[in-house]
């Protein structure tokens, strides 16, 4: 693929060839998709949520299908920060693509520990604090709903991070709360926001009466949640100029345009990778003709035409 200056997007810590990255948890650490296409084509790579120690995650089944969506309750399975530092990041360093390191934890200390372990990896461009994972009982979710806790966590991480820090917000809050969270983490020094994480959901097998997921509840993602994502991005964009990485149900270049108009500066694509493993490069290739169609010089231009504060 030729370099397309029209698609370039520069966000804190992430100099992106284009506004498209795979979303955290849907791309592991890139190895598998690297067999399918050149990861250097991507704007960035958001890696699987990383915790202090290795985690084995939840019992299976961990996924269930829903109309235009899916539930997952992976439970943050990952090899732990040190293994990510030693084994996964070096692999990704073989590609010309910045990494957005997604961080999770049960305590603020754990987030800080992960960031400390990963912050000097040269290809980590920025961190994304997952303060909203609905799938781990002990961790995450309280930071995702309490602005003070979210702000304290952000401030603690900022103290040790040498890279910009994005905070990933949960949609499982009231609209008023979402804005309060965005403003709180901005005040605490966040360099950007990611939204949205998954919506809490559940499926029951009508044949057995039992939940389909072993964990009973899980996170809803995919096109079903796109309107919720757009609404939250739009709402948050009204109150802050922080860069926003938008995600939730993106499947096509047209969806990317919709997110940019809503106020996102870049986008992440999760579930759609499972539907079509080539979705990211395909969308990237289709974006220029959308710019042509809309008579926009660049992604940045388009972004300016969209919702602004």
């Amino acid at each position: 693929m030729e370099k397309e200056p029209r698609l370039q997007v520069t966000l804190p810590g992430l100099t992106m060839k284009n506004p498209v990255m795979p979303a955290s948890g849907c791309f592991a650490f890139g190895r598998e998709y690297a067999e399918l296409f050149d990861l250097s084509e991507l704007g960035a790579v958001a890696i699987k949520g990383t915790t202090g120690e290795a985690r084995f995650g939840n019992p299976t089944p961990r996924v269930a299908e829903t109309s235009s969506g899916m539930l997952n309750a992976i439970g943050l399975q990952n090899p732990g920060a040190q293994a990510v530092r030693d084994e996964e990041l070096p692999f990704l360093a073989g590609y010309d693509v910045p990494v957005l390191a997604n961080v999770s934890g049960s305590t603020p200390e754990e987030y800080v520990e992960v960031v400390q372990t990963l912050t000097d990896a040269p290809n980590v461009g920025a961190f994304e604090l997952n303060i909203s994972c609905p799938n781990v009982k002990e961790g995450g979710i309280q930071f995702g709903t309490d602005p003070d806790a979210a702000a304290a966590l952000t401030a603690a991480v900022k103290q040790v991070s040498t890279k910009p820090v994005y905070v990933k917000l949960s949609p499982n809050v009231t609209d008023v709360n979402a804005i309060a969270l965005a403003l709180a983490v901005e005040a605490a020094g966040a360099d950007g926001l990611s939204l949205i994480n998954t919506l809490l959901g559940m499926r029951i097998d009508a044949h057995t009466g039992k939940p389909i997921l072993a964990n009973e509840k899980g996170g809803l993602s995919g096109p079903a949640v796109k309107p919720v994502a757009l609404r939250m991005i739009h709402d948050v964009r009204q109150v802050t100029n922080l860069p926003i990485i938008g995600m939730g149900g993106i499947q096509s270049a047209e969806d990317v345009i919709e997110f940019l108009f809503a106020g996102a500066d870049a986008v992440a694509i999760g579930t759609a990778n499972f539907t079509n493993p080539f979705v990211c490069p395909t969308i990237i290739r289709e974006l220029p003709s959308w710019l042509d169609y809309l008579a926009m010089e660049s992604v940045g231009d388009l972004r300016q035409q969209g919702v602004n504060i």
Partner: protein
Amino acid sequence: MKNEQMMVVENKTIAAKTHELTLSGPLVDAIDQPGTFLHVAVPGDDLVLRRPISIAAVDQDVGTCTIVYKEMGVGTGRLARSRAGDQLEMLGPLGEQGFPVEKPQVGEDVLLIGGGVGVPPLYYAACELVKRGVTVSVILGFQTAAAIFYEREFHELPGCDVRVMTDDGSNGHPGTVVDALNERPSPPDWLFSCGPRGMLRAIETHAAHPKTNGYVSLEERMGCGIGACFACVCETGDGSSYRKICREGPVFAFKEVVL
């Protein structure tokens, strides 16, 4: 691993709610191991997940492969409506570990046990074993007579000994595949199995002999199908680690994983 629009050559019903789909396309060239599977994109924009279906046979000369699937829900139900000439998007072949059909030696006792729609990958395995001159015994378990398929196909493989069991005794021998296994005079050298988790567990705990080289093909709900989402893990036998069924399997040695 390819992602490709394959053409439906034929889609025919071979047993109750069970269909055999023959596909053609360059992806066929890449198929070389029984136990591997295709990640099938079912038509319809409301379905975001693909369906993993084992490869049941491959014909490299004609350039076709076959999958056999049972209508279980919305996805397989829609597949059942596909017609010759339709295009279906397939990702595959997937799985790095299939049945080790290259290992059994001529003269060894090789037993294949399949339950229901666990039978198809064993048919592919049997074909490869027979090609190598290895004769196989097969125990096929079905719920009821109407569900039986591939009995004739196995019989047609040279030297293949086929025993069909039905839960309700409506055809073949009444009982389960474990009953049939227990009736055998001696434990096999090789045991390849695929079917419901309960059946596999019963084989492992009640019937598999320590001297048998036993392998199972596992099923689990999948997201990506290629090892990137951690949806389909199972615990290793010693509890110390895990395996991704889609990538490191779907076939494992009995002791490698916890069933």
